[in-house]
């Protein structure tokens, strides 16, 4: 498998993970916010984890996108 294909798979997987995470968070935000009234400690842990997870996933996705465009650039130059 060429590095370009590996980067493309990485990019699409990470984009998919970001979309999936956003879907899960937005569709369950009422449940998550409900914890704010019931269990503050769990809510604190969950909300902070969500921000860390999303931040890291988006950061990694941008990294992959950047690599993909660099690889595309190199590929076209090679040709």
């Amino acid at each position, binding site marked *: 498998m060429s590095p370009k294909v590996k980067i493309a798979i990485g990019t699409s997987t990470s984009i998919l993970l970001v979309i999936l995470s956003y879907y899960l968070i937005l569709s369950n935000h009422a449940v998550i916010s409900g914890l704010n009234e019931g269990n*503050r*400690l769990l*809510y604190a*842990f*969950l909300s*902070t984890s969500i*921000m860390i997870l999303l931040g*890291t996933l*988006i950061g990694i996705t941008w990294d992959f996108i950047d690599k993909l465009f660099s690889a595309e650039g190199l590929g076209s130059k090679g040709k």
Partner: protein
Amino acid sequence: MFPVDIYLAIYLLFIGFTVGILSGFFGFGGGFIITPFLFALGVPMNVAVGTSIAQILGTSIIATLRHRKLGNVDLKLGIIIAAGSIIGVEVGAQMVEYFKRISTEALNTSISLTYILVLSLISIFMSREAWKSRQSNNPPSSKITNRVQCIRVPPMISLPRSNITSISLWVILFIGFITGMLAGFMGAGGGFIRVPLLIYLIGCETVVAVGTDLLEVLFSGLYGSLSHSIKGNVDILLATIMLAGSSVGTQIGVSATKYVKGANLRLIFGFCVGLISLSIVFKLISELLEIYAFGFLSQALLVLTVVSMVLLVTILSFRGRKQG
């Protein structure tokens, strides 16, 4: 939970985008933009502050990862500064309590005056130095840096990423402490204080100062987010929507640092901090003399500063990408 419709979601995306650009370019957390905007929407002040910090945590992770990719993050320096900062923030918070016991008015006035003094000093010094460096093509003034690096209190450490062969650990901890104390007292993240101190006292390259500062913003954001969400001050829906906007803005802001010379970045930084300081002067006049036109002027100037900086950074980023 604050009700969110499609228009509000678009507005939040835009705010996040704006903060992302400034955060990636200057190393600011961006709380000074998000908190008043959320408050203006009708979000209670405590929730506006908590949500803003949670959003800053996500944005700083994205920006730090991107700056790390460009080699702009000094991990060792960031961790030591963060350690000093934590102690400083607690001292700053105690100072707030002290002034609060005297009177709330005394507290508000002293915070505003500290803001004006610190921001004006940074703005004048940085703009002057950057303007001179820009004309002579010299690196930032090394006189102060040399003096700081001459302090030989063991243990001495080296910071290869920042091109520093030997510096006392206590000096870095002390700088972290001072920025933390000012940030804790002024109720801000402290990026606008830390970046100049990293450049002029420690001797970091401008982009490394921005990247390393963002690492510190990440640590303080993590602590602040946990602390505020335990108190029930974080609206996770608002924070995640703004994060989506800032994820795009951050890339533009960080990319722009690649195409801007260090002296130009410092000049823009100094100019931006100067305008924010002027906006606080107007706000203080409005509160002390009860001239409400100055209050409006203060808000208009803040919005104008943010919009002009966002436009400038976006243009720099796209022009640089086109050329390079």
